[in-house]
């Protein structure tokens, strides 16, 4: 059994792919946040991201791989972990010794994954269609309008916000936990934990803020 | 009366072991592969012996009744392990350790064995450190020591309050290495049911697989018994629930003499009994006496007020406390040997000064230590030494670092905080110095059958010093038996493997099967524990901390009656061919019911007081134990003759060449 198939190897892979996604999330958030400040900057950045060949043909596939890897590995581990105890307990008091978040990563993960499905349907498919199938002419100023349009529906904003609550729950455990998985547990751990938890709340909250902001200002 | 040959080598005491090692027969590495050895028990002695024998090249089969060899009760030893390293530079030496052990044993142990023990003690520490045993260290990174009862030097190595655990895990790890190499075949959840003797030699055992109840035959060229002591004959003791005498008793019934059964150690610092439901007693390490002061109130009115809950021990003024050990034994104070401390506690409680509801408890108080350490810490840190709150806090931290796990254990059991109020303690049965008689090579009176560790009798005389049990277990297993056994096995290199289909194996297995079926088919009315508790009461009341002729005679009578009742009316539910704890327990209690009688008989025979054996008829006017060297400087080795009452006494005279036999005084 090599590192890739060992329990610890997989755990580290989970952590690293997770950290990568956290980094992506931060980047995504930063760009989205600019939409609140200035439509122009947002359009510029979005245009760059949408047309730069490195972003489109290198980073985008890496990101997709990262997402797919993280969730497939997540499912594989959950399945295997679940099989390690075929006969379940009659009474199991999980809340006595572990947080809800840590015990329900698969649930929060599935919600986030469903949201990603919606997000792909909403954003990525039309975008791909626009750029590579129908090959429509690029309008560097279309992004802001599209964004505002998306947040027009209160139902979409509600789903969007709810998904980010689950993302926050996922991150509350996952972000800090990934440091433990790669072997970081030392005198800085308490600080790391606080910082990751602050991140886990602040960033999803920020996304929700952006959604509501555009919904109300439309 | 046959004399016993203890096979002590010739020559000066200090050279005996080295000369002996140089002169005994060895088995060549190629031949060791052809020889099987069975080890029963995986405590310090059994695990270390198994590992070393396997490493030497023998094929080892090791048995334990627990679910893993790591559970053996050596794991519960708390305080430490002695070794004559003299790291503290306080004048320790091999001779001093030897001398202290002989004196501590009240001049009833075999001089040559004890000297050998002291010689190899230092090696044990080296060995354990090399194995990764995490002993306590000081800030310079070197090993730390503490002092223990009955000695004037600090020679005890420790790992907080879990020394036994760490040493056992060390030996267990050495075993694991050999199990991984295939040199040890480990049989967990297996109990030895009988010894098989072929042509006068130990050639195997009948074992019962405790999971499915099946009987198994296992053959070997030698059998090593490392099954621990028999303290559970008292029902309540600090031994584990499963600790039993059965392996030792079965070989006794097959011809091994049983020595000094009445030498039992009652440990002074245990948590007092809380009620009738109690199943076992918990020890508080002797190391606590380094810092704890033992006392009872001076005034009987205070005792009454405490029992009624009207007065707290912390409210009793210093001048109204009787620090009776410091009063009676100024030189050693709270660090007198265990037998002395236990009897002194009993004396106070018998006089009516016991401090709990049952009247059987004394205080072990850490207030002065907390204050002393607190002041020291305040001084070191440049803080105010007169700030009582600060000093207490700092002092408690030091005490927590030293004894934290013991204090926690106490609090969980008693529901009182020992940092704030004194602990209550009372003596309890802890260790048995007596055991299977062995010669210098640790061989019993059955050729090819060895006994090591607490299971044998050899090193502690009539009383064992603190932190010496771990030392003896590991000395026997790592450094003594693996050499001496070669002397015997060198005759067996051409024997070949021992068949298990011989009539002897057949007969032994049948006997075991019939015994088990008898229990199952008995369908009586009383549980096994019912008899065990009754036996324990008889033993504690009549063969406990003090004994007299009348009581011992009654005990013999009562045990005989109880045994008859047991066989007639015991109820063992379930079947023989399944996981059946009650059946396993029934077999063990049956053996205790025989051993108990021999115990009382031995105590009756020995009319002197010595070590843990206190005969009321033999005491000084001040109530101290009075030895009778003229008539009793011998080991009592009992030969089984069908019944405990008919056992024949053999005497091994004890000759002291290097030591002048003196009255033991700790005043």
């Amino acid at each position: 059994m090599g590192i890739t198939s060992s329990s610890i190897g997989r755990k580290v892979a989970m952590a690293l792919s997770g950290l990568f996604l956290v980094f992506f999330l931060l980047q995504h958030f930063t760009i989205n946040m600019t939409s609140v400040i200035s439509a122009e900057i947002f359009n510029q950045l979005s245009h760059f991201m949408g047309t730069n060949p490195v972003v489109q043909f290198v980073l985008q596939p890496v990101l997709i791989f990262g997402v797919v890897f993280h969730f497939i590995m997540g499912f594989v581990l959950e399945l295997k972990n679940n099989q390690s105890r075929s006969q379940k307990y009659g009474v199991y008091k999980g809340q006595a010794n572990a947080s809800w978040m840590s015990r329900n990563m698969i649930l929060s993960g599935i919600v986030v994954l469903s949201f990603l499905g919606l997000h792909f349907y909403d954003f990525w498919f039309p975008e791909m269609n626009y750029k590579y199938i129908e090959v429509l002419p690029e309008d560097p100023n279309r992004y802001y309008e599209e964004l505002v349009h998306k947040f027009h529906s209160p139902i979409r904003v509600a789903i969007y916000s709810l998904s980010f609550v689950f993302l926050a729950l996922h991150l509350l455990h996952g972000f800090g936990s990934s440091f433990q998985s790669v072997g970081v547990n030392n005198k800085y751990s308490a600080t790391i934990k606080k910082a990751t938890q602050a991140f886990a709340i602040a960033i999803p909250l920020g996304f929700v803020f952006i959604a509501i902001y555009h919904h109300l200002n439309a | 009366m046959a004399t016993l040959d203890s096979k002590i080598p010739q020559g000066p005491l200090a050279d005996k072991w080295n000369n002996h090692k140089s002169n005994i027969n060895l088995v060549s590495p190629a031949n060791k592969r052809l020889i099987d050895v069975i080890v029963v028990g995986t405590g310090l002695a059994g695990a270390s012996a198994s590992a070393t024998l396997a490493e030497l090249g023998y094929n080892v089969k090791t048995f334990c009744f627990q679910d893993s060899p790591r559970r053996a009760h050596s794991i519960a030893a708390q305080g430490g392990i002695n070794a004559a390293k003299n790291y503290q530079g306080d004048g320790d030496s091999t001779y001093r350790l030897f001398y202290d052990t002989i004196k501590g044993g009240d001049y009833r142990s075999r001089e040559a064995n004890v000297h050998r023990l002291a010689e190899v003690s230092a090696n044990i520490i080296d060995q354990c450190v090399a194995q990764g045993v995490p002993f306590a260290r000081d800030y310079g990174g070197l090993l730390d020591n503490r002092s223990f009862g009955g000695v004037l030097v600090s020679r005890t190595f420790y790992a907080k309050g879990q020394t036994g655990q760490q040493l056992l895990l060390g030996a267990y790890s050495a075993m694991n290495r050999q199990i991984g190499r295939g040199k040890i075949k480990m049989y967990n959840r297996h109990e030895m049911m009988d010894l098989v003797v072929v042509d006068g030699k130990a050639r195997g055992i009948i074992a019962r697989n405790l999971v499915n109840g099946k009987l198994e035959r296992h053959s070997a060229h030698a059998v090593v018994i490392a099954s621990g002591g028999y303290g559970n004959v008292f029902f309540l003791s600090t031994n584990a629930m499963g600790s039993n005498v059965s392996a030792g008793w079965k070989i006794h019934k097959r011809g091994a003499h049983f020595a000094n059964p009445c030498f039992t150690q009652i440990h002074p610092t245990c948590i007092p009994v809380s009620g009738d439901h109690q199943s076992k007693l918990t020890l508080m390490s002797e190391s606590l006496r380094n810092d704890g002061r033992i006392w009872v109130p001076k005034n009987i009115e205070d005792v009454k007020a405490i029992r009624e809950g009207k007065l707290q021990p912390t409210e009793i003024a210093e001048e109204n406390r009787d620090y009776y050990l410091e009063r009676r034994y100024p030189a050693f104070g709270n660090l007198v040997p265990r037998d002395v401390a236990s009897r002194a506690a009993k004396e106070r409680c018998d006089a009516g000064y016991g401090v709990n509801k049952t009247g059987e408890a004394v205080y072990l108080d850490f207030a002065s230590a907390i204050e002393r350490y607190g002041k020291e810490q305040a001084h070191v840190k440049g803080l105010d030494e007169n700030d009582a709150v600060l000093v207490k806090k700092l002092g408690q931290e030091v005490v927590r670092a030293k004894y934290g796990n013991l204090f926690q254990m106490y609090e969980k059991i008693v529901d009182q905080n020992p940092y704030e109020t004194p602990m209550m303690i009372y003596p309890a049965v802890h260790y048995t110095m007596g055991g299977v008689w062995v010669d210098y090579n640790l061989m019993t009176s059955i050729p090819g059958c060895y006994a090591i560790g607490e299971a044998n009798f050899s090193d502690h005389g009539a009383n064992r010093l603190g932190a010496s049990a771990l030392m003896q277990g590991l000395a026997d297993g790592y450094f003594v038996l693996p050499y001496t056994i070669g002397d015997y096995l060198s005759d067996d290199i051409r024997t070949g493997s021992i068949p298990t289909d011989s009539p002897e194996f057949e007969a032994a297995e049948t006997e075991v099967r019939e015994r088990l079926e008898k229990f199952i088919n008995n369908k009586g009315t009383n549980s096994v524990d019912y008899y065990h508790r009754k036996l324990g009461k008889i033993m504690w009341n009549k063969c406990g901390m003090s004994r007299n002729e009348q009581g011992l005679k009654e005990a013999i009578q009562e045990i005989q009656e109880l045994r008859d009742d047991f066989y007639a009316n015991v109820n063992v539910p379930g079947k023989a061919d399944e996981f059946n704890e009650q059946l396993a327990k029934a077999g063990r209690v049956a053996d205790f019911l025989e051993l108990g009688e021999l115990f009382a008989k031995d105590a009756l025979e020995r009319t002197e007081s010595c070590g843990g054996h206190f005969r009321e008829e033999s005491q000084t006017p001040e109530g101290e134990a009075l030895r009778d060297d003229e008539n009793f400087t011998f080991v009592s080795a009992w030969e089984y003759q069908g019944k405990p009452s008919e056992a024949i006494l053999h005497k091994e005279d004890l000759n002291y060449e290097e030591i002048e036999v003196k009255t033991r005084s700790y005043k």
Partner: protein
Amino acid sequence: MNLTLKVWRQPNTDSQGNFETYQLADVSPDMSFLEMMDVLNEQLMSQGIDPIAFDHDCREGICGMCSMFINGEAHGPDRLVTTCQLHMRKFKDGDTITIEPFRANAFPVIKDLAVDRSAFDRVQQAGGFVSVNTSGNTQDANAIPIEKKDADRAFDAATCIGCGACVATCKNASAMLFVSAKVSQYALLPQGKVEATDRVLNMVKQMDEEGFGNCTNTGACEVECPKGISLENIARMNREYLAASLKG
């Protein structure tokens, strides 16, 4: 006090188990949990019912043999104790207590509440040792000074009693806390460093083969561990494993 006890009964490994309910009266708060079980067993035997099998030995919290899952928690509701040190004063009159065996595929039930934890032994046999001969011909114990901090940490890791509460309590039935405690003990001591690479690789391999689940850092094991073994050890094992894997 009077209690209702729901106890898992299973005659042997291959059979189906189920809960049985028993009433027990006059339980003293000073009893340990196992003493309460003794009393229950006496009562069952007097009624002609097979007594409940459970593992126990030292009854002072150090041998690691007792192993019950009580009201949804390994070793019951109290912290830093084994079942044998859990006292009935932690329960109230009229309580219903559910008692189950430690459950994990790697710990098959032998009978009732007794389980087979020999998987732990096999993990240790795969590398939980220092390969030093027991000849006594080693160097002097004080030849290598060890920084007190490391010695203390090694000791803290070594206090693991191998009871399996970490596995029982982990929602994934992971044995990482147990294995990491042993890996850590040796990794922190110079005597153990020599074989550190092989040790961690072999022990983790064996752990995986035994069918334990993976760690998802819930931290439940640390909370329920009767000896308070820290999650730091798992992080250390992860580091050791990564380093060892890269070193090959």
